[in-house]
């Protein structure tokens, strides 16, 4: 019942060209990115997107590569929706939402070719760098995926890899000599939701609860490299193409912010 009233109110404001927090339809909430905040992590970032707060930590480890990619480093992404982040989150292993979010963020980074995984090979077939990206949702105020992706990307940009000396079959890790992760590109994730006939960028919690469908688009250099439709409803072709065009446009703006922070 409460949801129906909320949705009606939302639509009424939208018909007057306003979102409930006064934003333009295609505006992001205020974004704040802080990197290098967790000393023990090899890379870290904290992102606040409106009231949504996400922490990402990167840990590096030397291990075995996958058998079908013997000279590539391994990237693994995991997300935890902490019970302290929302009254609707319960303790336990990642549920389908956390799993989906982690896999979308992972696909975006992978398909954007963000990290030069070849450069993370130490001894082909035997030793490569394993990159563990752990996304920690600290507060849920809508649009977790964009905040999480931003945090993961910022944490990776913040990550430093120690140099490794290969002597025959053994390796020596030079922990004092670190250099940034080999980065080839910076993907940006933009999520749009459909409420009534409106497309809203960076949905707040109320907008997300009222939405019929959502489209998360990952952009790299003006191209789409990953995309996921979410929600229980549907989108028309026009809405899909419109959301993609908006995402490409917003990605440019967001990338500038990201690059600024990391430098």
């Amino acid at each position, binding site marked *: 019942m409460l949801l129906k009233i909320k949705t009606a109110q939302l639509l009424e404001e939208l018909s007057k060209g306003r979102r409930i927090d006064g934003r333009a339809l295609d505006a992001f909430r205020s974004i704040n990115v802080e990197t290098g905040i967790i000393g023990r992590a090899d890379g870290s970032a904290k992102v606040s997107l409106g009231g949504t707060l996400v922490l990402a930590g990167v840990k590096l480890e030397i291990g075995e590569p996958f058998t079908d990619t013997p000279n590539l480093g391994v990237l693994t992404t995991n997300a935890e929706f902490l019970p302290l982040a929302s009254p609707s989150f319960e303790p336990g292993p990642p549920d389908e939402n956390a799993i989906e979010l982690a896999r979308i963020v992972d696909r975006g980074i992978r398909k954007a070719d963000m990290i030069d995984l070849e450069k993370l090979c130490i001894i082909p077939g035997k030793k490569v760098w394993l990159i563990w990206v752990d996304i920690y949702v600290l507060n849920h105020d809508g649009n977790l995926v964009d905040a999480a992706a931003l945090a993961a990307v910022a944490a990776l940009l913040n990550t430093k890899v120690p140099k490794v000396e290969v002597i025959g079959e053994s390796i020596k890790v030079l922990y004092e000599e670190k250099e940034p992760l080999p980065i080839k590109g910076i993907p940006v994730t933009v999520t749009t939701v459909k409420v009534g006939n409106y497309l809203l960028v960076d949905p707040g919690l109320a907008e997300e609860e009222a939405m019929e469908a959502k489209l998360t688009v990952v952009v790299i250099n003006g*191209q789409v490299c*990953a995309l996921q*439709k979410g929600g229980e409803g549907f*989108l028309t072709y026009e809405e899909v193409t419109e959301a993609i065009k908006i995402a490409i446009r917003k990605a440019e703006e967001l990338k500038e912010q990201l690059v600024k922070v990391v430098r």
Partner: protein
Amino acid sequence: MGGLKLIDENGLRLDGRRPDEVRPLNMEVGILKSADGSAYVEQGKTKVLAAVYGPRAPHPKHLALPDRAVLRCRYHMAPFSVEVRKSPAPSRREIELSKVIRGALMSAIYLEKFPATVIDVFVEVLEADGGTRCAGINAASLALSDAGIPMRDLVSACAVGKAGGVMVVDLTDVEDKNGEVDLPMAMMPGRGVITLLQLDGKLTVEEFEEALKMGQKACLQIYKAQREALKKRYLSIRKQIEKEGESIAIED
């Protein structure tokens, strides 16, 4: 991606198909007697089975919604369905696909007609050769219809991709693994709307629009096959009776 030519000099794919050709389809409805609705779908070598139970009473009771049915969906792959045996425990991929498949079916079903009930959809992949989530959605739509659950439209799904630099539809596993792009999509063709859309791989906006168009055409082919599969049983009984030459007295 080294060395494998996915498209030959004549523009044909490894299995001889043209880029816009869907694989041979085989659809059977009502094959599992215990389920309320069921269907078996083959798209090339991909084989999936779907079963629907419901609407039925929810267990536990508290998961029921007062104004509509709850739709639960489970996508699962048999251990022997893939090249390297897969553990029967649900993987992260299966959990994500269960979620997106549910999202693909929900808007097609009149859930409001069955408050405080549960509709369970089970998709089992028996053999995987690419496009399993799409085949699963195609089978699930048939199973839901077979169960007599009212729907706005059937949901038809097909993946579009880029292999060897060319846009293709209904990718096989080889084309998916070695190609540049995988774009599974599902739609309600009668309504002209998209209910599932995922992208893995780089596309420009123009390429994306082309992919959507190709996908829509492929989904329409599947839609036709689904309709035929639903009516087949009933029409064959009717034909048989008409052949037996009983007098047809039209009852009013």
